[in-house]
């Protein structure tokens, strides 16, 4: 086992030993390296002021992605490349196109969020050849908050930064990073210890299973987009944690054809971004839900498994996965078992997990017809918000009747929940507005939501019902605009 870590920071190799393993990357950058360009705006991954770009080996590929440094633990970066705002300009001080574009477009005012935007744009610049559509820019920037500019100049900067490429300096830098990542593919297990805390980093699923069985009190860390807050906001100590981000088996997405249809298997360590890419836009509704899942920085490091395992009552992805009939794959030592997702959630903060047992992944069955499946997330803010209500509908119509139906909801109960009574009211019935209207009362049997800071109970109940109505209207009257995003301003001329 190795007891120290190393990574490439702004083109230079850093070796770190004797560090508390729950030190965040941000704390280390600011306090130890005195790289203060990266800011703390919220310390919970919601504002993006701490954005850095991380290069990682993913299977055969290498990805450079924006992530939040404020809730990521330092050992997670072993064997990666990290670029901060100080490392973006050329050595001679010439600004990178993303920086120059921000300056030219008057895209900073107070400047505190600007390093984060700079890094999100830098990631976009590295991953796109030409200026993407405005909607893609908005997606890339949804995890960065600015309170001064109103965003227009920043979006303009993103659009105009692609002129004048390619840059020789970029290519050189990329080569240095790729060379480092290629060389850094060493497979040792890590044990990072400091301040009486310990983080273990296994390299295979078997190793993980053995480690966790022997230390069932350990906290499993995947993307740390939730566990990071336990440390930064709740002062929890995490005496022993196990980081699963280097277990390659858990990072795989596989697709297999069965008699019943296409089955997708996603490892518990697959990030949301990778999962969305692997499914390449099918089904569209799931892709749209991912687009609205947190911000880009969280999607790039947060995992599908983590989103399920943390047992949030909202669990933004879980309602969709329930509707897709997701199976949770569990492992304890060498024992494996499978639980249907809706049964995995037992109660608030309680899941069907035994001591030493962990998620290895999930399996979903893609709907035969993509149009059978729809998701509706309702939140105060369109992007980067947690659902007040999220409803997912997987409804197959045959000969004008509801032949199959699975409906999942988040925000309606202490756990993400399947709407069995609503399903029963629909199944076998003619697919008509009358059937839908009759099924609405069944929501009262399935759910008794609560009021909280996001929404009142009565709003949640009303919206849940209306989402079924929307689903019906969308499938039967396809020309009718049913979402505000369908609607453009009345045009001149």
């Amino acid at each position, binding site marked *: 086992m190795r007891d120290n870590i190393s990574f490439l920071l702004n083109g230079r190799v850093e070796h770190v030993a004797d560090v508390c393993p729950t030190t965040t990357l941000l704390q280390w950058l600011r306090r130890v390296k005195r790289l203060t360009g990266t800011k703390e705006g919220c310390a919970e991954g919601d504002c993006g002021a701490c954005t850095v770009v991380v290069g990682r080996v993913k299977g055969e590929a290498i990805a450079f992605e924006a992530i939040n440094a404020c809730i990521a633990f330092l050992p997670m970066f072993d064997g990666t490349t990290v670029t901060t705002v100080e490392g973006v300009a050329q050595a001679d001080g010439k600004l990178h196109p*993303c920086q120059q574009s921000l300056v030219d477009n*008057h895209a*900073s005012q107070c400047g*505190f969020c600007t390093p984060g935007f700079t890094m999100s744009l830098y990631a976009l610049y590295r991953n796109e050849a030409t200026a993407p559509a405005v909607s893609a820019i908005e997606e890339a920037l949804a995890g960065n908050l600015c309170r001064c500019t109103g965003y227009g100049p920043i979006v303009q900067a993103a659009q105009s930064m692609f002129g004048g490429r390619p840059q020789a300096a970029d290519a050189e830098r990329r080569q240095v990073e790729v060379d480092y990542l290629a060389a850094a593919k060493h497979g040792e297990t890590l044990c990072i210890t400091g301040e009486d805390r310990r983080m273990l980093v296994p390299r295979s699923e078997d190793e993980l299973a053995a480690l966790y069985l022997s230390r069932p009190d350990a906290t499993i860390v995947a993307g740390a987009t939730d566990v990071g807050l336990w440390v930064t906001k709740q002062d929890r100590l995490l005496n022993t944690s196990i980081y699963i981000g280097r277990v390659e088996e858990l990072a795989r997405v596989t697709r297999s054809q069965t008699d019943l249809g296409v089955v997708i298997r996603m490892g518990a360590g697959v990030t949301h971004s990778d999962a969305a890419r692997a499914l390449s836009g099918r089904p569209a509704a799931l892709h749209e839900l991912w687009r609205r899942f947190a911000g880009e920085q969280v999607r790039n490091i947060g995992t599908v498994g983590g989103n399920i395992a943390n047992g949030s009552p909202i669990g933004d992805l879980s309602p969709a996965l329930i509707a897709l009939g997701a199976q949770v794959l569990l492992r304890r030592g060498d024992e494996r078992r499978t639980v249907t997702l809706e049964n995995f959630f037992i109660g608030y903060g309680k899941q069907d997990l035994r001591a030493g047992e962990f998620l290895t992944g999930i399996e979903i069955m893609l709907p035969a017809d993509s149009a059978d499946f729809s998701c509706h997330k309702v939140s105060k803010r369109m992007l980067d918000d947690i659902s007040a209500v999220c409803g997912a509908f997987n409804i197959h119509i045959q000969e004008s009747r509801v032949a199959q139906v699975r409906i999942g909801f988040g925000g309606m109960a202490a756990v993400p929940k399947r709407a069995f009574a609503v399903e029963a009211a629909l199944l076998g019935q003619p697919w008509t507005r009358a059937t839908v209207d009759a099924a609405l009362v069944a929501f009262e049997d399935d759910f008794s939501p609560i009021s909280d800071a996001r929404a009142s109970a009565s709003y949640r109940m009303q919206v849940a019902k209306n989402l079924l109505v929307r689903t019906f209207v969308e499938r039967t009257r396809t020309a009718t605009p049913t979402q505000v995003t369908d609607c453009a301003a009345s045009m001149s001329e």
Partner: protein
Amino acid sequence: MIKMQKQGPNRARISGGVAEALHHDSAVKHVTGGALYVDDIATPPGTLEVYIAMSARAHARVIRLNVDAVRAAPGVICVLTAADIPGGNDISPTPTEDDPLLADGLVQYVGQALFAVVAVTVQQARAAAKLARVDYEELPAIITVNQALAARSYLEAPYVMQRGDVEAAIAAAPRRLSGRMEIGGQEHFYLEGQAALAVPGEDDDMGIYCSSQHPSEIQHTVAHVLGVARHAVTVEVRRMGGGFGGKESQGNLPAAVAALAARIARRPVKCVYDRDDDFLLTGKRHDFRVDYNVGFDDHGMILGLDVMHAVRCGMSFDLSQPIADRAMLHADNCYYLPAARITSYRLKTHTQSNTAFRGFGGPQGMVAMERIIDEVAATLALDPLEVRRRNFYAHRDRPDEARAVTPFHMRVEDCIIDDIVAELSETAEYQRRRADIRAWNSSSAIIKRGIALTPVRFGISFTKTFLNQAGALIHIYSDGSIHLNHGGTEMGQGLNTKIAQVVAEAFQVDYARVKITATTTGKVPNTSATAASSGADLNGMAARNAAETIKGRLASFVAEREGVSANDVQFWPGCVAVGGRVFTFDEVIKDAHMARVSLSATGFYATPKVQWDREAARGRPFYYFAYGAAVSEVAIDTLTGENRILRTDILHDVGRSLNPAIDKGQIEGGFVQGAGWLTMEELVWDEKGRLLTHAPSTYKIPACSDRPGILNLALYDRGVNSEDTIYRSKAVGEPPLMLGISVFAALADAVASVADYQLLPQLDVPATPERILMAVMRIQTG
């Protein structure tokens, strides 16, 4: 006539003078990480960090506070309680003495500073604070506006502004309506939280580096808490990571705690708020309830208006009095009210002490007035824009004594809102689009669109007249480089850039020659807060006056040497012309230095004409008004209440712009911030007075995709200030926030379409998806 010589100016204009669209002076530092904020400053070795432990009760006596275990925790150096304060335990921004630094036996909101833990790291301090034993004896707590109104829990006697016989006017009006509107508060969400670093010096000296809009007040507060003279405290502010009013008075607490800790620990101490703590500790925009009773005629002309403002001030005054006053001073917005009464209740509640926020009460007063206009229009089935225009104050070029006086008896002499609205409604095609939208709505069952044009008139000047003063300090070094300092602070609004442009213009030298330096109480004393949109107006004038003083000395020196009159000396781009000869600026400076001419000067400015008799509620509280208008088109989903801003057109008057790029940035950012307040930003307290929305996970400010799908923004190109302001520009910081009201009015218009515009649904602020859906359902069921 001065003859041009060979070495004369080879260009017509300096680089970076007034009216150029320069980028923000720190823009390159912003994008490279080189701009330093308080938490970025390299601290001396041994610097400690302090955590402020907060009250867990809204209203309680603290029976026992035992911090023994806190003191014994790892890393802890000392624990501070009220008993440790050598001077006064008060950090009030006004002489109300109702904001203790650390609670002394009584807590009055959840989040109030109770004690402070000084440790090697803030993580250690925070962990240690959890070990305290606090026993409370709970007292009845008043949380909401309605609870406070019912309990007559007032900070001060209700304040009334009145003009004319309101009862008679309303009673005699052909039509009347009354209503109520609840208006939520707003969290500033400056990206940089409150922060201060205190560095003790010799004697009683204390140096403070902080993120504050009001360095002088930090100085006064720290001196008061430490029990030392103000000359012992020096406060420096290089820049803030956003302020928006939230760093006008709220910086007092972290600075005073850091200073107290530094004094006791005899080491530098830093206090930086965590985001959640910042939400819990600091005040926000005041939430209001507005009740109104209006009389009008069949054409929508308002005849009388009686308005009640119930203002949730929180546990102390802070700046609530001038804020509530300004709300009243904007209860008319752009509209002449023949008879009006505005009654304001300043409610004491056991919640955070609400504070300044961009607009300073004006937005709340204005949004209610716009709502009243919309209701009048809906009642008469008139286009709200038509009702707005009919009620505007008299245009400045068409003086009509009878329609130019405000409810506070000030004559509006500069009204140009008719011109702005006329131009904007044309360019935005308001009429055609309104008709199109109504036609479209009739065939769209689920998605409905709405449109509204709302105007803004915002009074410029501090209503506390004495605050309308500013100072500046300019040094020219012997190499000709210029060091500029003034009393204003940079919070992102580009103030330093503008003032440097003013100074460059005054001396006729390139902007690059002017070095902008951190605001410090040691250079310019007794300053007012950078607030009330006044930064460029006041400090620009002060800086120009300083420059003119030096120019006068230079002119005298050169004139004497060349044997001409000082009046014959002219400052040309980069040089000084005199009697047919031209000298470079550098030469003149060098020669002046050798000739023992002072190259340093202070400048001062006091706004003329303003006077305000608060007791009588009469006078001229404002030097002038800033005007603007916006048209917004929105879409709502009648199944969920979700909504989008599809398009916004803005025409805004900044007079003659000092820097159009910076001014446009203020307008766009202000608009989006205002729209956020009115739509998605919702503060939720529970019945125990605990703020539930204390992080960006639950409190949503606009994100990138929430800006309008299309934004057409223009400066009013005929704009020129009627008053003699700095280069005839107008203030721009706050007024654009209220352009966001167009979004709120458009949302109401969209909801009204559900019942075919027969009535205007009740809609409160913020118009969240939930409120919109409930409004839709209410009018669906009649």
